[in-house]
């Protein structure tokens, strides 16, 4: 049986479920894959797919973005960042704008590249902007260990890392958000394993399925969720077995624990969540850019008219935002969900279903 026939069968199976359910895809990569393949339009209307807070760029708080912009203006600083952050609007500027005004901002694909820049520029201060979930944090931990080993003194990390499970807990406990089941992120789960979802599933009685990113994976994941719901069950399960193991990646987890400790972090849309961020343990504090440059915590100033917060929690769909496609487009983004490659607004904008055109 080829993929196409199999997909048709999966779709038919999904269409046979008649109850009203809301499923949330947590991860931005899922949001993109769902929009690109058109799954949202092909599943029946009683199965609602919500997009969740799984885009690391999008959930970075406005105050934290403003702090980065402040830092990159300091003389002597080289700010290294993933490309996705360049166009994210702060309150009054973006990294892209700052670069055009002379700030030294370099797009890298790995923190190890940033470390190399630090080695080559001993007279400058190189700051790596750490944005991401449990997936990106281990490579950053590796670069920090290396910096310590080589005694590279001009390298530091601005850690805005976030942990996924505490955010899911907030979503499940919010009475305004109806989520009956979670399509859980594939890559993050490859690190953290199934345990966090087992706890969530048991506590809130909602099924969670760790799912891969191909169209077939997502359809299978949806079926696994629907199946549990129709049986009245709420377990954590893995669809993405070719990559994710129940125990996750203990080596990566141990590495994270050695370097970082959980702390409260500010999320766009969800606010401050205890234990949802990663700060450097005291042995590594000398690599903490916030401490090194005495960066103040900047208040979150809401962007006028921007509903990214509601979009990130699944309270509204991107198209329900008044700015969507009018005041806010990928070329002139108002909020991060329209900028990031993983942002729900960007996904809905780029992959518009034919019937939605106007």
């Amino acid at each position, binding site marked *: 049986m080829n993929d196409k026939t199999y997909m048709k069968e999966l779709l038919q199976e999904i269409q046979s479920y008649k109850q009203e359910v809301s499923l949330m895809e947590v991860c931005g990569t899922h949001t993109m894959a769902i929009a690109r393949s058109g799954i949202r339009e092909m599943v029946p209307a009683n199965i609602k797919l919500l997009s969740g807070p799984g885009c690391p*760029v999008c959930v970075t708080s406005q105050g934290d973005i403003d702090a980065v912009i402040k830092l990159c203006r300091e003389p002597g600083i080289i700010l290294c960042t993933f490309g996705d952050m360049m*166009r994210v609007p702060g309150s009054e500027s973006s990294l892209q704008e700052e670069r055009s005004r002379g700030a030294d901002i370099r797009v890298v694909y790995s923190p190890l590249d940033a470390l190399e820049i630090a080695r080559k520029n001993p007279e400058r201060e190189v700051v790596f902007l750490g944005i991401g979930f449990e997936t990106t944090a281990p490579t950053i931990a590796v670069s920090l260990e290396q910096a310590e080993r080589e005694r590279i003194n001009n390298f530091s990390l601005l850690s805005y890392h976030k942990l996924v499970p505490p955010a899911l807990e907030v979503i499940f406990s919010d009475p305004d958000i109806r989520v009956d089941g979670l399509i859980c992120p594939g890559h993050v789960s490859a690190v953290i394993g199934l345990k966090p979802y087992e706890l969530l599933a048991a506590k809130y009685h909602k099924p969670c399925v760790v799912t891969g990113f191909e169209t077939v994976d997502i359809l299978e994941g949806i079926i696994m969720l629907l199946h549990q719901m129709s049986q009245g069950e709420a377990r954590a399960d893995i669809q993405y077995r070719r990559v994710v193991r129940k125990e996750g990646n203990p080596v990566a987890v141990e590495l994270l624990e050695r370097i970082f400790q959980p702390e409260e972090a500010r999320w766009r849309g969800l606010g401050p969540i205890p234990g949802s961020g990663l700060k450097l343990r005291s042995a590594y504090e000398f690599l903490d850019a916030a401490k090194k440059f005495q960066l103040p915590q900047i208040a979150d100033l809401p962007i006028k008219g921007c509903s990214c917060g509601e979009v990130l929690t699944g309270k509204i769909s991107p198209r329900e935002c008044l700015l969507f496609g009018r005041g806010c487009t990928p070329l002139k983004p108002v909020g991060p969900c329209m900028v990031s490659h993983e942002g729900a607004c960007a996904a809905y904008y780029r*992959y518009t279903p034919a019937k939605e055109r106007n």
Partner: protein
Amino acid sequence: MKIDRVLLAHGSGGLMSQQLVEEIFKKEWNNSYLEPMLDGALLDLPAGRVVMTTDSFVITPLFFPGGDIGKLSICGTVNDLVACGAKPLFLSTALIIEEGLPMSDLIQIAQSMARTAREAGVQLVTGDTKVVEKGSADGIFINTTGIGVIAEGIDYRPQRIQPGDLVVVSGTMGDHGLAIMARREGLSFSTPVNSDCAPLFRIGQVLEAFGGNVRCMRDPTRGGLATVLNELARQSGRGIKVVEEDIPVNPAVAGACDMLGMDPLYMANEGKMVIVLAPERAAEILAELQKIDIAAEAAIIGEVRAEPAGLVLIETELGAERILGILEGEHVPRIC
């Protein structure tokens, strides 16, 4: 040559400049138009409408799997001429070189330009070299301008596109964009991906025999297939509908794009054409295209419709229909 790097003095216009021209460019590009060393080239053009096009090439790294900036600078301009329906004839080039570029790199680039021009049947007839201070350029920037002539009865402007026409691509999409990104970022894949960088004049030769049955042609370079299809839809005022699974994509490119969160339909190609054909002889034309190695994987990927005017639709593998939009901003890999 004893000096192993390009110096500012090489751009001074004096003796060192002359040496550079004599020992590298004249030697490699040698032809009767260049030989007299006049301020410009005197050209005799065959009858027909003359097409002129220009392009500048800035790329990191200068050497990449499947090509280099020299080859690219010839292919890019030759392919623009071919896309206009012209037989490429003459090229000019201007090189802006950063002080300190290894002389061996410059020689290799000049040789690559000469070889590619020979393959493409064009001659480099005039050129200019400037050297700028270190930090003012990135190794070398190359501009090429090309002149070609269109044969009687050939017109590939998008206004000729009609509902019912078929849309063809001459091969796999996204190879160049991915090869460059992989090289630039030090990503390695189990199956290496080469840039598809190639001169496409033979596609032009094959199509010429079919006259008006070929409606339009364009090369999907920056912005990739999706961008070119949108340009064609908008400029022709027609709708275009393509089928995702009919679009050829090298499996290694598809796999890498999945991993990076990139879309091969938005990635650059440097050796491919998008061709719109009248339906009557499309099968025959496709078969002829597939006989040449650079278009062996040519495939029909969709059709032109009256509606929705100016838009491109794509049918996904799941059977959903969505708008295939134009790329907004940069196409960058995702974080997690």
